[in-house]
């Protein structure tokens, strides 16, 4: 039953993340610490990818379904959104488009510059 041991490794890294979150006084969630630790463990060869591969793949591909319940919960927050709904939607829509465009286009420019340098 490789899935059990794989899940165990993943849970251990989650716990390590939770531990760091309680020890380090920064508003950074356990998942970020855990992700960084797991990436270090994988890239240093401390943990072989085969030890977690299938279960990790399943969890990553199943991630979207984990957001169904939180989004459905928006119904309960109508009291907070309701009075400012138009303003909030404007801020959301405008900033989402702009952040997407700036982040993507700046990266694209940087990549292109680097390519030009390499060519020249």
């Amino acid at each position, binding site marked *: 039953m490789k899935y059990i041991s794989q899940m165990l490794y993943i849970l251990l890294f989650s716990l390590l993340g939770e531990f760091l979150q309680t020890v380090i006084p920064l508003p*950074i969630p356990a998942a970020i610490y855990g992700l960084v630790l797991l990436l270090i463990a*994988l890239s240093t060869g401390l943990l072989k990818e085969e030890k977690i591969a299938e279960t990790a793949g399943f969890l990553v591909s199943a991630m979207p379904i984990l957001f169904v319940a939180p989004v459905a919960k928006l119904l309960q927050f109508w009291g907070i959104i309701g009075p400012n709904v138009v303003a909030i939607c404007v801020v959301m829509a405008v900033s989402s488009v702009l952040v997407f465009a700036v982040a993507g286009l700046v990266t694209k420019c940087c990549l292109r510059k680097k390519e030009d340098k390499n060519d020249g």
Partner: protein
Amino acid sequence: MMADFLPGLSLFSLALTFGAFQVGLWCQKKTRSPICNPILIGAALVIIVLLLTGIDPETYTEGTTGLSWLLTPATICLAVPMHRQLKALKKNLPAIFVGVFAGTITSLAVVFGLCRLLTLDRTIAVSLLPKSITTAIGMVLSEENGGIASLTNVVILLTGIIGNLMGTTFCKLFRLSDPVSRGVALGTASHLIGTAKATEIDPLSGAVSSLSLVIAGILTVLLFPLVCNFV
């Protein structure tokens, strides 16, 4: 009411979530339209079923806590696709960092500016500011600086949904054709929910998006107190 006939409500909540998501997946497959987003359709169906059956939304939420516990392990597992793309990530690290930095500044500046323009009060402005980063960081930042954590939770989810829903359309619109810029845009603008989309588009986009959401989260933690001084 129908609620009385369903004593196994936590199992019902799980089955409802999976069923609603499956319908969403089916709609996406049939129509191939970005509007048919499985998260959005799933959540809408759940809301409809809850309203029709009279089941208390709290009960539904409680029934799905098992799923929410999986969120941390699932996020941590993003390290695996990142590890597979480590070479490409290292090679493109400067471009990724500059892109995420520009996006994070844009997010804070635009939200700040719009809140001023629309004369939203400080509590709301502070609650909206962390909208592009992952929920766990955003809610804490908002609360520490006088915002409403649950409002922040709402706007973060909505931002994620916008990215997940419109991601491919935005990529076409802004001519982002390479996986690295796509990943940076999705991860910076719409955190984990955008990253879920990026992993569907391309493995490298997914890895870049994961890295971007980590960098964007940490940058926002560092910049947030500065911006809050001006709000």
